[in-house]
């Protein structure tokens, strides 16, 4: 018999207008409990204005051993960065 409850990942928006950021995880048996536990565990000092909780098992992650192959396509495209371009001397606001 297992007593173990689900693990949920917690994301907090620290201020209205900012993105939610991952802060950690917790155990809960349902979504309401997950939200309340997240409030008690991760916002004891006004850390947030909004909380998301997501079941850990629903998160899909890339694999760290694939990191080179997976991210390779973006490595050789330096022209995607503004510093790639030569600007004529004296041009302003660009």
């Amino acid at each position, binding site marked *: 018999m297992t007593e*173990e409850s689900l693990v949920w990942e917690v994301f907090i928006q620290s201020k209205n207008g900012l993105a939610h950021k991952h802060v950690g995880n917790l155990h809960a048996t349902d979504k309401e*409990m997950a939200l309340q536990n997240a409030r008690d*565990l991760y916002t004891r000092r006004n850390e947030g204005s909004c909380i998301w909780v997501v079941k850990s098992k629903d998160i899909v992650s890339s694999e760290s051993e694939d990191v080179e192959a997976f991210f390779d396509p973006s490595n050789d495209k330096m022209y995607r960065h503004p510093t790639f371009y030569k600007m004529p001397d004296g041009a302003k606001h660009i």
Partner: protein
Amino acid sequence: MNETKFQLKIDEEKKIEPKDWMPDAYRKHLIRQISQHAHSEIIGMQPEGNWISRAPSLRAKMILLAKVQDEAGHGLYLYSACETLGVSRQELIQQLHEGKAKYSSIFNYPTLSWADMGAIGWLVDGAAIVNQVSLQRTSYGPYSRGMIKICKEESFHQRQGYEIMAELAKGTPEQKEMAQDALNRFWWPSIMMFGPNDGDSPRSGNAMKWKIKRQTNDELRQNFIDKTVQQAEVIGLTIPDPDLKWNEERGHYDFGEMNWDEFWSVVNGNGPCNKQRLDHHIKAHKDGKWVRDAAKAYSEKHLN
């Protein structure tokens, strides 16, 4: 091959993450250390919880409640970090209950007076902070992130303890004596929190090589003593060590020999409160079973 690559990563100050390859002994060492750390936070709620109902003012009571709640939070951060290594929360609790996992021996000492709340915050949390600041740079990512979060919250704990000691020390002669008595009882157990001397610490070698630990027990202990002596002087209390004196040449305080017989006796279960602390945890866990069962039944019914 794997092991060489792993060590290279460690040497480059890269963090190890849960899905990365790691030697079994590294994983085992981390599970032991992080779970011991988590259990310490949770068991550490008991000696302080003992004084919540008897706090001398509403202010003191609210602060103590917040502090004990923080300890619960810190325990949960650490259990989470430990679970990323493939061990379940249930297994960790079971290891604690069966005496297979330890917690910090400091919590096996009783809290006899209100001044003990001061001594615990100032010395026990102070010692813990020295250790945890160092562990922010530990090589295992989830442990490091947990330590960073905990350190941010922990400094209020030490300050509230020191404030209690300072208030008592400038109070009536009886109050000052109470503060001195708490310091006398908690000083040696606090500096023993850093563990055995480096020469007698069998697991240190690998822990340093793998950068799980960043400083040795003796380095951390010296750091704590150097900081604390001046704080005791400021509030007019005396550290109960006749051998304590500044060593100009070393640039550190010299201090007396710790009573290692007592240390090992408490580690091995014979401290004043070992049985009480564990029994209380087991009882609370058993008493809470119906709540866990009910929550589970509810979630199955609603299939959220």
